[in-house]
């Protein structure tokens, strides 16, 4: 049984795309525990399986094999309909490309998860505005995504991920489309607002500049977790790890030059 306080429990999870000669082993046996109240980062070169792992955890893709429990549920045991409801209630998403709906204002975009849950338009949009205000975006609530900067759009996306108070928030490269300073500001906001004792946050990134925000860093390569770093206090990562991260960060996005700790 999965222990209390564990948001995601993964044992030997694999994911194979395609079949025959064109088979891709995107995940080759993932063992990972993600705790509530923590911010976990998945880092590693392109193609190492980070996005695939996120997709499997969020039930957007089925794992090929292994044991996976997310917030007490096994995604593969849920019907497609149940899975959608599960995501709607329990998950918040932040995407690299923001994925805001261009036709909706910032506040309306934030309101989408509430609308999907059946909340009335006025109420939902009002809640969206409130939340934007707490993220310092009150003055942009009526702006369309096209009128917002990248950093502002990502704040809106963050608000959308938070608005329905989910227990697990997943972010795929939330800062990689932003410049360093903006990305850092978004991360500060994210760690300040998203991390709560009853919630887990997973961030996929290869942005070494934001590693300091992590409580746990899972290094991935070729579909495996090659090392796992714990850090109970932000900013207290070991010197060795920071050095390694920086080397790798400079080498990105050319994955081949990333020196892994072996298979």
């Amino acid at each position, binding site marked *: 049984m999965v222990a209390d306080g564990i948001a995601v429990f993964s044992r030997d999870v694999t994911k194979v795309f395609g079949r025959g000669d064109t088979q891709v082993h995107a995940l080759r046996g993932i063992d990972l525990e993600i705790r509530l109240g923590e911010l976990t980062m998945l880092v590693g070169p392109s193609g190492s399986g980070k*996005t695939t792992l*996120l*997709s499997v955890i*969020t039930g*957007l*893709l089925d794992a090929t094999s292994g044991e996976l429990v997310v917030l007490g549920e096994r995604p593969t045991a849920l019907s497609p*309909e149940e899975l*959608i*409801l*599960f*995501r*709607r*209630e329990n*998950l918040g*998403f932040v*995407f*690299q*490309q923001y*994925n805001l*709906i*261009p*036709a*909706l204002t910032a506040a*309306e975009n934030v309101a*989408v*998860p509430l*609308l*999907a*849950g059946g909340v009335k*338009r006025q109420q939902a949009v009002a809640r969206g505005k409130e939340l934007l205000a707490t993220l310092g975006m009150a003055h942009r609530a009526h702006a369309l995504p096209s009128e917002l900067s990248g950093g502002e759009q990502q704040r809106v996306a963050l608000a*959308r991920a938070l608005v329905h108070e989910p227990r697990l928030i997943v972010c*795929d490269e939330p800062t990689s489309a932003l410049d360093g300073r903006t990305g850092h500001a978004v991360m500060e906001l994210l760690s300040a607002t998203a991390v709560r004792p009853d919630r887990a946050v997973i961030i996929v990134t290869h942005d070494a500049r934001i590693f300091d925000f992590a409580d746990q860093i899972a290094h991935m390569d070729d579909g495996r977790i090659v090392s796992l770093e714990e850090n109970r206090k932000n900013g207290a990562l070991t010197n060795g790890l920071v050095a390694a991260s920086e080397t790798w960060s400079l080498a990105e996005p050319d994955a081949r030059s990333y020196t892994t700790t072996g298979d």
Partner: protein
Amino acid sequence: MNFVAWKMLVADRAKYFSLIFAIAFASFLLANQISIFIGIMTRPASQILDVVDADIWVMDPQTLYSDEVYALRDYDLYRVRSVPGVEWAVPLYKGLGRAKAPDGKFRNVILLGVDDATLVGAPRKMLVGSIYDLGQPDAAIIDKAGFRYFFPGEPLQVGKTLQMNERRVLIVGISDASAPFQSFPVLHTRYSQALGFVGRERNLLSFVLAKPVAGLSTGEVGHRIEAATGLKARSNEEFSWDAFRFYLRNTGIPVNFGITVMIALIVGTVVPGQTFYIFTIENLKQFGALKAIGVTNRRIIAMILLQAMVVGATGYALGMGMAAAFFASFLNYLPTRGIVLPWQVMAGIAVVVLFVVGLASLMSIRRVIVLEPAVVFRG
């Protein structure tokens, strides 16, 4: 989520309007062409149906339809009258003549000669004057369109004269007769008067109009007439259909209209269908995000259907508005007079539009349903 669907739809103004205009244009074209087609093709029938008093048209077996008539011989009238089951029978002349206005303007006219005693076949709807004025010497009733042709700009009034066959024609009334197929002016006169107006024809008896005695069906009495006289007897309805079928088979009209209708159908199906589909494909990423966030497939289907319905209803309404405006402004033109937009055509086009947007949304829905929400993580 309905307002989200609505906002997504109208966000791309250009695409939204081109969708609506494609549907509006197609439904206008369909309404217009089909209505004119029906209007023209039913003109011979409406002329026949203008004669309400009689139920049976008796004619020479060679007469195929109402606008090309082989005359009967005078005694055929008495033969029909003597058939058991015939309540009464009266003569009707129908032919072409040439009329000359006082200003020298000539035009072919359709001349109807109705039975002197009973006036069976005289116009039902009179705008000016009375059918009983046909009793005056040289009297004739002209239809409104004909009056407008011969006396443009003048108020509808009796007392005007025309000339036919070197004879004076005194206009004693103006009728609202249905437009004939050839859109010529329609003149009604007494049967005995008609000979004077056309002159050259030896035989005037185009049709015998008959009424069955009470209790006997039109079909039954028609059969009896055919058996007894060797002539052809048709009910009003049959005779209308004869004319309709004749023009359908023997003119290029159905082909002409058919081609336009086909083009309207193709344009009206392909353009909005394609545009709507592309619209959905362009929004696929957004739908993917919605699916990932937890919007159910059913909700998304409802969104797409709403978008399709908005486009379909708006385009249809606009198209019907255009068609209505068209028919309202052309109703009084001589060639298009009396052509209206039948509600059956409007209903039919509504079904076509519904089908088109239904098909387009089905294709779009299919794409969105099979869409892997995992796409949201791809760049």
